[in-house]
């Protein structure tokens, strides 16, 4: 038993030597190098302050993007095979529909697809000139899965770049990601959310035309009111969100931010000041970029970020590797943009489902209060136990302290998180640990009153109460286990504390206190007074049991 306590103590040492403000351990080096435990108690975000975010990944976009890509490819391949077709469209329910001009083409086409595009499955069995195909289930799942994995990686890089100590970015279920970012200050909250949310899709496109509004452009004679094939419209937006101008951009040739190898904050040379983002392409990117710029000197190159044109400078000379994105950024904005460009674009968009942020101020407040509450609660209970149960009360107090040590050690060792409800759980554990002891002591008192010797009373008391305690506490365990299963975050912390607390309190109440009694009884075999808080009986001459005067 003593051994156990020592082990528990050792497990706790790292927690005591951990500076919660700087997240540094103050353990001496020799300790860190040994096999001895090094991890401190993990504080929940609601105690130490930080952000907890749950985002859902819009995997449908991934599937849609794939289908769009396939649409284009299918058309190309059919043409290469010289199979005539009228058109290929993507229907509303995510099917690819090809229209063939005649039966022969349809047969050639469907045969070709069946042989070379296994992942496309026909939706109807009958033959028709406009067969529809859907993507195989396994393919869809794999796209969705990949999308989530990619998002996971990108978000992790972005968070790393931002510089959070001990962040946690984990997948939750099929399409959700949970981010835990300790220590985020109140002011940084917005920035972090922006960094996480933006798709950061960067594209460089050649400008075909520009105008004050999209209608103004389209109404020009050569367009006749429609967006020409292979082009798209995009607005230029200023920092307030107002649309300044509209552009008609050529889809090809283009280069995207995927080819970036670096992005840094810089300062533009002009008088307005403001930060800019200097970027650099990798080798392949540089090749493409120099070709685009070299072939289009005198044209405007639009730098499009997340679908909006940031700037569209004129190409004065061939550019190889480096360039600049400007747009009246503040230093913070430029820095954040550089971060997301470095970490990479998100393949699909994400949506924030849940946010729980606790500022460090509140966090520290709550830790202090929680600690005080538990200590005083403990003190009150201890005082009461001593008064009511005397010596037995002292034994109970000892077992209570050991219970708490075990509980904290278990939390630290298991890397479980201590949350605010967890602190409440500790308080509840205190109450229930005492309960187990009370059951035993009341039983012992009963046995004493029937006239048994102290020794026999202790034996009987423990024997009779063991199952009572087990039955009672197991039901609490059931409730706590279910809570653990069903709960998230702080609730889970509460459940874990309760489970560990109940387990250790039952253990100490039944085993530890018994050992102590054994020790006492061993020393004085014929002890007359157990000092358990009730008057001692003594036999009179008549053989009755009477209270000692």
């Amino acid at each position: 038993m003593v051994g156990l306590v020592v082990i528990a103590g050792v497990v706790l040492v790292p927690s005591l030597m951990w500076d919660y403000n700087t997240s540094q351990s103050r353990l001496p080096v020799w300790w860190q190098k040994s096999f001895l435990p090094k991890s401190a108690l993990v504080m929940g975000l609601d105690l130490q302050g930080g952000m907890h975010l749950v985002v859902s990944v819009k995997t449908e976009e991934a599937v849609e993007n794939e289908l769009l890509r396939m649409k284009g490819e299918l058309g190309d391949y059919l043409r290469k095979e010289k199979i005539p077709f009228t058109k290929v469209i993507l229907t509303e329910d995510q099917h690819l529909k090809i229209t063939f001009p005649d039966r022969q083409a349809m047969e050639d086409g469907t045969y070709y697809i069946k042989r070379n595009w296994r992942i496309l499955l026909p939706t109807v069995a009958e033959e028709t000139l406009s067969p529809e195909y859907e993507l195989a289930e396994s393919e869809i799942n794999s796209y969705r899965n990949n999308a989530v994995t990619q998002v996971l990686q990108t978000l992790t890089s972005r968070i790393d770049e931002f510089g959070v100590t001990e962040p946690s970015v984990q997948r939750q279920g099929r399409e959700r990601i949970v981010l835990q970012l300790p220590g985020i200050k109140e002011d940084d909250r917005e920035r972090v959310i922006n960094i996480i949310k933006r798709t950061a899709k960067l594209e460089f496109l050649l400008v075909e035309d520009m105008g004050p509004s999209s209608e103004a452009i389209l109404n020009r004679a050569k367009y006749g009111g429609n967006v020409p094939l292979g082009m798209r419209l995009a607005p230029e937006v200023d920092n307030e969100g107002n649309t300044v101008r509209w552009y008609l951009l050529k889809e090809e040739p283009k280069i995207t931010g995927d080819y970036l190898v670096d992005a840094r904050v810089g300062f533009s040379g002009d008088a307005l000041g403001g930060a800019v983002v200097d970027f650099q392409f990798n080798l392949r990117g540089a090749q493409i970029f120099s070709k685009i710029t070299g072939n289009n000197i005198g044209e405007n190159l639009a730098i499009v970020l997340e679908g909006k044109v940031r700037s569209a400078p004129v190409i004065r000379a061939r550019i190889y590797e480096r360039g600049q994105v400007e747009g009246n950024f503040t230093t913070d904005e430029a820095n954040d943009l550089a971060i997301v460009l470095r970490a990479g674009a998100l393949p699909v968009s994400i949506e924030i489902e849940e946010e729980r942020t606790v500022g460090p101020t509140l966090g520290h407040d709550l830790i202090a209060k929680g600690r005080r509450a538990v200590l005083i609660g403990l003190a009150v209970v201890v005082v009461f136990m001593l008064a009511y149960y005397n010596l037995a009360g002292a034994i109970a107090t000892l077992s209570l302290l050991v219970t708490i040590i075990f509980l904290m050690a278990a939390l630290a060792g298991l890397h479980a998180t201590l949350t605010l409800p967890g602190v409440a759980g500790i308080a509840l554990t205190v109450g229930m640990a005492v309960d187990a002891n009370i059951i035993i002591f009341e039983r012992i008192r009963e046995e004493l009153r029937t006239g048994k010797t102290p020794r026999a009373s202790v034996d009987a008391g423990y024997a009779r109460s063991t199952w009572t305690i087990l039955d009672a506490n197991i039901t609490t365990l059931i409730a706590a286990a279910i809570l653990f299963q069903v709960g998230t975050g702080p609730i889970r912390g509460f459940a874990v504390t309760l489970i560990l607390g109940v387990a250790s309190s039952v253990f100490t109440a039944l085993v530890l206190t018994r050992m102590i009694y054994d020790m006492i009884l061993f020393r004085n075999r014929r002890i007359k007074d157990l000092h358990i808080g009730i008057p001692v009986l003594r036999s009179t001459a008549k053989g009755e049991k009477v209270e000692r005067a």
Partner: protein
Amino acid sequence: MEFLKPGIRLDLIGKRIYAVIASVIVFGLSIGSFIWPGPNWGIDFVGGTEIQVRFDKEIKVGELRSEINSLGLGDVQIQRLGDVGEAAQGEPDFLIRVERLEAEEEAEDIPQKRVSSMIEEKLDEIVGDGKYLILQVNYVGPRVGEELKSRGIQAIIYAIIGILIYVAVRFEFRFSLGAVTALTHDAIIAIGVFVAINKEFNLPIIAALLAIIGYSVNDTIVIFDRIRENMRRLKRLPFIEMVNVSVNETLSRTLLTSLTTLLAVVSLYILGGGVIRDFSLIMFVGITIGTYSSIYVASSMVVFWEEFRARRRTTTPPIPKRG
């Protein structure tokens, strides 16, 4: 020290009719309160944004509310919190809550999380940047809210089933009936009290409810254990008397345990802040009612079931005597 005399024999079970009446009334009221005024569902369950702000100096709630209302974010609730943390005098803490706008699913420009930015901007306007501190932000999207609600309810149901099975196995069916009656009684009344004082229902409350359920059964089982023991020991006594004896014998322990746990909970209430405070309040109510229900509701149920079975037995035709 002893509070109760050892040989105590109060006629608790005999007087149970009063307790039953009282319980039924309070229970009925609690159920009624679900319909009106109905529980105050927190954002954990209905979605929305909650921001806890500390201002540098006093501000008028009315002003604050109308300013935030003007943002057109739908239902706005503003609550003044007691001194959370080490806020000095005149540094009030407020809780601003905005419920999710309906049918705003795909509105790109007012995604809910930007509600918090909009509110922050507004605060910059009213008091000035730097004159306030954001202590805490909670946002729950509609999907997550629904999930949390259903999971919360599931949790409670599973817990009750799990307990019912365990007690039925370890004791007898009628005991588990008594246990379940008692804990349902406790849970409903505890919720009723909360609705009555209009506290917000969030996840920690569900956790507290489960803790109460666990605790109440804990209590109840100790008494059942004694009844089980006395069933064998005191065969000669009529059932109802035997139950009464059992309850009396365990009275000391039952009251003491509740007392000590309440001591712990009360100190949590006084010294804890925010979430801990709400939590301990519901624990206090739950433990009190749990103790009461273990003594009366659970045992009464067992007695009632026994009498019910006994009555059924006597109405079956007697077996004709032999020879």
